């Protein structure tokens, strides 16, 4: 049986779609949907840290600076070590999300009841959110906050 080129293309596309949809039934992640939803993270609008958060929350530059000055939080840089070495928020520790398994010893030594703010390369960067999810959901840290402006915003403001 000879199929026209168009029919062959339709066959391949249909097959791929069917297998892809079938594959989605075997994904063990409640947050995974075929149609991806944009994730909206809750934002903290005051300077006080809520006691019982239900997930990682986003904080502003002002919030980050305020608590940086008071040393009431620990900053975690989620970028690669090379980026961290080139410049980071003063006092921040480096846990690159891409290699987090290698940093398990360091993570386990951290006090999980302390307050942490993760950051990376600004709003286009998702490492800080991924790391925050990991620390909150898998490592059961109490309070993980995300500073979305990250190193670019911090550096631009001339903060240490």
């Amino acid at each position, binding site marked *: 049986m000879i199929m026209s*080129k168009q029919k062959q293309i339709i*066959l*391949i596309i249909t097959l*791929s779609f069917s297998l892809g949809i079938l*594959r989605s039934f075997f994904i063990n992640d409640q947050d995974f949907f*075929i149609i991806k939803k944009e994730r909206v993270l809750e934002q903290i609008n005051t300077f006080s840290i809520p006691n019982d958060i239900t997930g990682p929350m986003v904080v502003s530059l002002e919030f980050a600076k305020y608590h940086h000055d008071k040393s009431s939080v620990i900053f975690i840089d989620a970028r690669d070590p090379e980026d961290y070495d080139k410049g980071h928020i003063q006092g921040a520790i480096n846990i690159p999300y891409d290699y987090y398994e290698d940093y398990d010893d360091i993570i386990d030594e951290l006090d999980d009841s302390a307050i942490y703010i993760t950051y990376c*390369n600004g709003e286009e960067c*998702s490492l800080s959110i*991924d790391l925050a999810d990991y620390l909150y959901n898998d490592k059961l840290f109490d309070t993980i906050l995300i500073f979305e402006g990250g190193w670019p915003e911090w550096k631009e403001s001339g903060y240490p």
Partner: protein
Amino acid sequence: MNFIKSLRLPLIFRFILGIVFIYASYEKILDPIGFSKNIHNYHVTPIFIENIIALVLPWAELIIGIFLIFGLFLEGTISITISMLVFFILLLSQAVYRGIDVHCGCFSIDANDESTNFQFELIKRIIEDIIFLGMAYVIKFNNKFMNQDDALE
């Protein structure tokens, strides 16, 4: 000319491309969530289709890889192969042009900073894809001539 013909280049290229596509699909089929994140990092697709692409594209690569190796539905397979490679080349090129660090999806802060290494990786991948595209065209034209020969006979 006969020597070149005797090399059976189109057949070799079909095998090479087939293996490349199957190899590329394998990890993505196992980890669609990770692949969806990677797609997100290129900043070109609307968020709602990222998971669909992450689910469907690897299977398309696997099917194309198998069809290339076994020479099945070659006309349609090679058309999709060429479209995919062109798409990948454009995708990677825009990432280089915009200076996106696809690894973490971040735009680099300074134009001439550490991301040069990553840019180099991307350019390497673009060159690879252009070579694969060349192979795909060799297969396409060979297939066309074979069909013409069949028709003449």
